[in-house]
């Protein structure tokens, strides 16, 4: 099943064209990795999948992004879109409030107010994100006091709390130490059973370790998109080969 069908997507920041006609199909319950040199449009494409680019002044989108066959730039409500398509950012960004309130923020946004329901959501999402044991005694403590790795896993849990279908992750481990990175990769692999995941990474090893498919970007275009194994072992395009062997970028 195709989750996201991106058809000839062009994106402009004012006069600057950041995406030059992207065609890409993102499969359900798979991990798709975006790789490519800095400034090639990976984050831009990721943000356009839950319309975070709406917040950028002067940003214009042409083309189609279909989520389960429905155009997200058409009639689909943005609030509902962002509930279905969650986002985890490069730098962990827990809100300056308690662990509990961080997790409950999303469900409350979407109208859940009963205490017992929220309690249940907080517990199950923290368990799903594999930090329940670490945080169950600190639910009322400020999330800002957690370690960077814990903060990032909290942010993943926060995104999971609204029961999304897709998780977008923009270099989620680039600000973390190797041990935290390992824990998050493990978590991502586990989440794959229930969610479709798109992850931007600068780390080739990470892409090979966790992703099923990989897209290589260059200057606003997808140069090559294939099974991760194929792309890294037998790249079809010369530019892909140059990039993954470290000859540029």
């Amino acid at each position: 099943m195709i989750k996201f069908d991106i058809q000839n997507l062009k994106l402009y920041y004012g006069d600057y064209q950041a995406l030059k006609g992207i065609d890409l199909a993102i499969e359900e319950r798979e991990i798709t990795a975006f790789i490519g040199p800095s400034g090639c449009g990976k984050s831009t494409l990721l943000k356009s999948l839950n319309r975070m680019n709406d917040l950028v002044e002067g940003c214009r989108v042409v083309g189609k992004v279909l989520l389960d066959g429905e155009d997200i730039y058409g009639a689909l409500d943005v609030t509902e879109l962002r509930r279905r398509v969650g986002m985890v950012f490069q730098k962990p960004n827990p809100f300056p409030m308690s662990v509990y309130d961080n997790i409950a923020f999303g469900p409350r946004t979407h109208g859940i107010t009963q205490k017992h329901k929220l309690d249940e959501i907080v517990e199950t999402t923290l368990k799903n994100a594999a930090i329940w044991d670490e945080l169950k005694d600190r639910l009322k403590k400020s999330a800002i006091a957690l370690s960077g790795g814990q903060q990032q896993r909290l942010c993943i849990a926060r995104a999971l709390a609204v029961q999304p279908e897709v998780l977008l992750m923009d270099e989620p481990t680039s600000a973390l130490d190797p041990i935290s990175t390992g824990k998050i990769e493990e978590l991502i692999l586990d989440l794959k059973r229930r969610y479709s995941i798109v992850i931007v990474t600068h780390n080739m090893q990470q892409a090979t370790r966790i992703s099923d498919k990989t897209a290589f970007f260059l200057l606003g275009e997808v140069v090559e998109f294939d099974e991760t194994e194929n792309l890294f072992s037998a790249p079809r395009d010369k530019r892909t080969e140059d990039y993954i062997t470290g000859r540029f970028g």
Partner: protein
Amino acid sequence: MKSRQRTKRKPLDLALAAVTYIAAGLTVAILLLLIGYVVIQGVPNLKLSMFSPRYTSENVSAFPAIVTTVELTLLSLIIAVPLGVCTAIYLTEYARRGNRVVGLIRITAETLSGIPSIVYGLFGMLFFVTALGWGFSLIAGALTLAIMILPLIMRTTEEALLSVPDSYREGSFGLGAGRLRTVFRIVLPAAVPGILSGVILAIGRIVGETAALIYTAGTAAEMPTLTGSARTLAVHMYTLSSEGLHTGEAYATAVILLVLVVGINALAAFSAKKLTRA
């Protein structure tokens, strides 16, 4: 590396360190001198009769002035804080960048914050007291001071909002929250300490104000009513010392004012702590 730097200080380092110590010491010394002088002059003149509920020319009671100061401060804040905070929210969270109106509001606020308070007093007198026919009154004074502190509240709030990291906003929008929810649940709470420090500054200006109040709230020493003339402690002090008959009481009033200011600041700092922890 580090330890060597610590043991072998360069002469320039030493000189700079000395300068900062001397500056800090001087500042503290001047402050202590000032407070000490006021306390030494004022405390012996403090009499219980100064706290009698009614002012007469014999007891020179400061009590009505204390009540007026508190009421005027609260009134001005109740008017100016919501207005200033909402304007700042509009400017930072809603208005598009490069919007002409935004530029205009900013320049106006900047200009207004540089105007001497007597000008606000004259405006208040011409508009509230004369044109609207309210006469010297607490409400005319409160509105005048509200206008006076509005730019200050606005600018400190704006700075506080701008210093809230965009990543909080992204996180909130990313979960499907709208702008209203993002602003009031995420951004504003994170900005509360900054906003409160603006409010404390504003309180300082209100409590210390005389010129603008003499022209709008007048100098009556009665217990305050909204539509009647009343004097704050600062104005009370000013009139006492300018009449020249009660210089001792003027110093005593200064002590009361000092205590009041310390009290209000402590309260504000306490509520800041409470609010940010919640």
